[in-house]
């Protein structure tokens, strides 16, 4: 039997080895963090002890149940039916076996939502009916892109979801603009979504714009002579073409040691933040990142592994490299 739990995520949170929120620990509220995770629980107020035991500190419930939950001591938010219907459904984040689909490389398929979040940064989303074991990645994914998302998780995932949300909230808030190496003009063509998906999958950093921006060396507008719509029919090949145009050396962010990590980079020149999402379902060891920018130090926080410095750091003119010893579902690196 599945109980509905909905987590509303926001931007900017923290990570320590995932303990439950202690009685004396006051985590930032979703309002304080500018959006933030809420847990929407359709199991009814009779399950309050189960919810508390899981470490949940903030919860969304059907609007009609708000009054019943007010005495729970939890932070309660009501979600009306209309509001719920306005949340855009997103995919279960996972490594996806698609053996019947030819791929251009050995790279496994990943079901990820980064492109949707990038396209609709102010949107509301819902991870509907997440299977057991996926709530942590879903929470981290929405957090990494700084969007509000509702997660409907399996009952056995309640504790994992709460722990992840709490850990994310312990992160220092860093509202930084996205870093992009090129732009994509959203022409609302049928192909554009899959192009965005593959660009995200390949860790090619883009900004979605209504019209080309002169300050970017590459502006992709499908349907032009330079980027005919036919070229986007194979979005994987199209993404590779864009990658070659940029040149790996010029890319703001590279990830080595895995083909199953999706990364996001934000920064303002003085500070940078790298979000790393691990879709493999297993621990990643020895992952290496390369970030362009004048950064001198990096602080790593890997969900479940705590806060530490990057290893084997290398600072050369305009490039910062470092190794993440271990990470699970999610890690964030703050660069200065």
């Amino acid at each position: 039997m599945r109980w509905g739990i909905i987590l509303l995520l926001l931007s900017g949170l923290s990570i320590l080895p995932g303990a439950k929120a202690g009685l004396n620990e006051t985590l930032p509220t979703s309002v304080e963090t500018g959006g933030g995770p809420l847990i929407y629980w359709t199991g009814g107020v009779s399950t309050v002890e189960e919810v508390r035991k899981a470490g949940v500190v903030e919860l969304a419930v059907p609007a009609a149940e708000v009054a019943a939950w007010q005495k729970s001591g939890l932070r309660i938010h009501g979600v009306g039916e209309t509001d719920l219907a306005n949340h855009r459904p997103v995919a279960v984040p996972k490594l996806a076996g698609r053996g019947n689909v030819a791929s251009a490389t050995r790279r496994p398929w990943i079901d990820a939502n980064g492109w949707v979040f990038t396209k609709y940064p102010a949107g509301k989303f819902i991870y509907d009916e997440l299977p057991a074991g996926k709530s942590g990645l879903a929470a981290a994914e929405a957090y990494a892109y700084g969007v509000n998302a509702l997660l409907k998780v399996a009952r056995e995932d309640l504790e994992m979801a709460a722990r992840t949300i709490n850990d994310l909230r312990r992160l220092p808030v860093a509202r930084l603009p996205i870093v992009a190496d090129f732009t994509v003009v959203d022409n609302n063509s049928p192909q554009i979504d899959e192009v965005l998906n593959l660009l995200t999958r390949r860790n090619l950093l883009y900004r979605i714009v209504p019209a080309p921006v002169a300050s970017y060396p590459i502006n992709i507008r499908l349907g032009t002579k330079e980027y005919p719509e036919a070229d986007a029919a194979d979005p994987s090949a199209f993404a590779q073409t864009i990658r070659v145009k940029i040149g790996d050396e010029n890319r703001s962010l590279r990830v080595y040691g895995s083909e199953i990590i999706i990364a996001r980079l934000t920064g303002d020149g003085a500070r940078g933040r790298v979000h790393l999402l691990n879709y493999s379902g297993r621990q990643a060891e020895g992952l290496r990142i390369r970030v362009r920018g004048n950064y001198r130090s990096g602080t790593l926080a890997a969900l479940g592994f705590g806060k530490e410095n990057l290893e084997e750091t290398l600072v050369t003119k305009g490039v910062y490299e470092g190794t993440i010893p271990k990470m699970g579902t999610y890690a964030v690196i703050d660069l200065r």
Partner: protein
Amino acid sequence: MERRTFVKLLSSTPLAPALASGAEAAEIPRYRTVTSHRPAVVPGMPGPYPGTVISVKSARSLSPDGLKVDGEVVREMMERGMRSLTGANRTVDAWKQFFNRDDVVGIKVNAGGRPWVVSTPEIVVECVRNLMAIGIRPEQIYIFERFEDQMDEINYAQYLPPAAAGVNIFSAERANQRYSNANYDPSVYVEADFFGEDDTRSNMITLISRKLTKIINIPNMKDHGATGVTGCLKNIAYGGFSNVARTHYRGTSHTLSFVGTLAAVEPIRSRTVLQIMDGLRGVWHAGPFASTLKYVFFPRTIMFGTDPVAIDRLLIDIIDEERKRQGAISIWDRNEKTLDFMNGKKRDDDPNVNIIIREPGHVEFAAKLGLGVADITKISLREIEL
């Protein structure tokens, strides 16, 4: 961290072999090698004996059915081979030409052909015994390979004598599934984009770059679906770096240039000082694997040298001649009609099916990088039969 970085760029295709017909070799990718290690005065490859190969054969090394190894005969083959290579009168002096008591020595085994064609434990034990005989402590010796699950199946530790307790068994990764990059050196790598993969770096095993001072390379005599043969060069190159399987995909192989390119990276080139090709058993098709005896043959031979290219050049003929004897297409065959790149089972069932166009030319390519002698007319082969 500031460090000196030597970057070598290899571009265009001047070393691509002329091809008579069939599928052309893929264009040589642009390689970027990053290492702070300088070459030794005399790099281990090709070492002090370029172009020289000692081949020791004994029918008694294996039981008549080929399944059991005679350790005493192997010891005799090893002693004769090492003395013949070096010209030393005593075996211990032969080993002293390559190692001293301060060395930290890695023995690069090949475990991929388990269970039938791996670096024979009796040969590995002989290496350990001889290293200890010149004063190297067991703790200074590492038997290593990339994948732990393969090493566990062989379990070299069970073959070591009590005096060798303390010899290290090391694997860089748990399995061939890219679980971990933690045992690879982030500062020594070759970068290349073969098929648009995201991870474009192949990093050297940290044990090699930061701990070992010398390496003994013990490959097997094996066919390989992508390289044609897998011998000295591929065992140390693809066995010493991460993320190498990316070079062959859907019928196309970049092994032609990448095997030698990796083997030439310092410090692996300088530290690999001795090549012992284990040819007691071999694989003539469907290599590098040998999960059944179907394609296993029994050369009952061990080859010695410091030149990996010369040994591998001879290996090409050994494998190709065995394939010819078995009625199989040549490893040089580039006919696309033999190619069924999505069908590993068919390749396993039929020795006239390839899943990739093989690139035995990688041996000649390595020669042009200075790793040894590929010209068969310039290779000095001394054959000993016991």
